[in-house]
């Protein structure tokens, strides 16, 4: 009896807030995925173009740009596709991305060969912490990690989102006694 009292209001509270919160989380996720997609297309197409044309003049920054482009493509897919495996892939790629932008950003400050600024490549995506891309490359993985962390609960109760969408069928008699 005493355990039923504190238990009872909690699920109802959560039920009211979950659909809205889930929708917002999904919305933020869509925005995040869209930004990733733009960055993926931009970085990859530019890197491919530079590899075909001027690769020998600035091999290090162009290779780094190509790697970052591939990572962005993988991260975009992993954020978009459902399931626990892709959730893990998203964590791995976004972590790698943050590591990459920090390491390459730092190296580019020390070594002009890595930075490539002023050369034909005009710098890699991750040079100087992504200054050429408005510092988005260093901010994005942090936002991505925050979003992934907020979704963590979904993977302990995998079908909770589906369950709340089928809410109108008031199967719970306890909710009637409010």
């Amino acid at each position, binding site marked *: 009896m005493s355990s039923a009292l504190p238990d009872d209001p909690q699920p109802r509270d959560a039920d009211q807030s979950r659909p809205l919160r889930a*929708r917002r989380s*999904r*919305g*933020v996720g*869509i*925005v995040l995925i*869209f*930004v990733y*997609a*733009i960055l993926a*297309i*931009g970085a990859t*197409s*530019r890197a491919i*173009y530079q590899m075909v*044309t001027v690769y020998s003049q600035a091999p290090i920054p162009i290779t780094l740009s190509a790697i970052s482009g591939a990572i962005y493509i993988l991260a975009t897919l992993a954020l978009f596709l459902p399931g626990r495996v892709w959730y893990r892939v998203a964590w791995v790629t976004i972590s790698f991305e943050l590591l990459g932008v920090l390491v390459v950003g730092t190296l580019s400050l020390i070594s002009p060969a890595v930075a490539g600024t*002023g050369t*034909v490549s*005009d710098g890699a995506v991750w040079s100087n912490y992504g200054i050429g891309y*408005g510092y988005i490359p260093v901010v994005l993985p942090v936002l991505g990690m925050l979003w992934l962390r907020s979704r963590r609960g979904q993977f302990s109760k995998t079908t909770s989102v589906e369950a709340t969408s089928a809410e109108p069928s008031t199967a719970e008699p306890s909710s009637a006694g409010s």
Partner: protein
Amino acid sequence: MIEWYAIVAAAIAAAAGVLCLVLGLFGVKPGDLSMGAVALVELLLLGQLGVAIAQPLVGNPPTGSLVEFYIYLIVALLIPLLAGFWALVERDRWSTVVLGIACLAIAVMVVRMNIIWTGHIA
């Protein structure tokens, strides 16, 4: 390339981007205003394409890389279409935010395209 066209296009795209972002964050679903703003940006990009085709023909060829310019332009042309398509599929406020981000990305890309056209290699 005609520089003023790129500047005007970038400014309008940036304004459209801010408009859609604000609309989206205030909870407005994609509607005539936001979709119209994105359509205008797409039209400006098509105008940019026309400018890029016409300019070398009238004796004003690029001093930078034309191929790189066109890669940017093609990607830029696709972005509003993707965002608009998404806004039609999923009609909620976040799609309006996506439309705004698309326009802002276009603004940056148009500025960048102008730099590429004139040649950014010192």
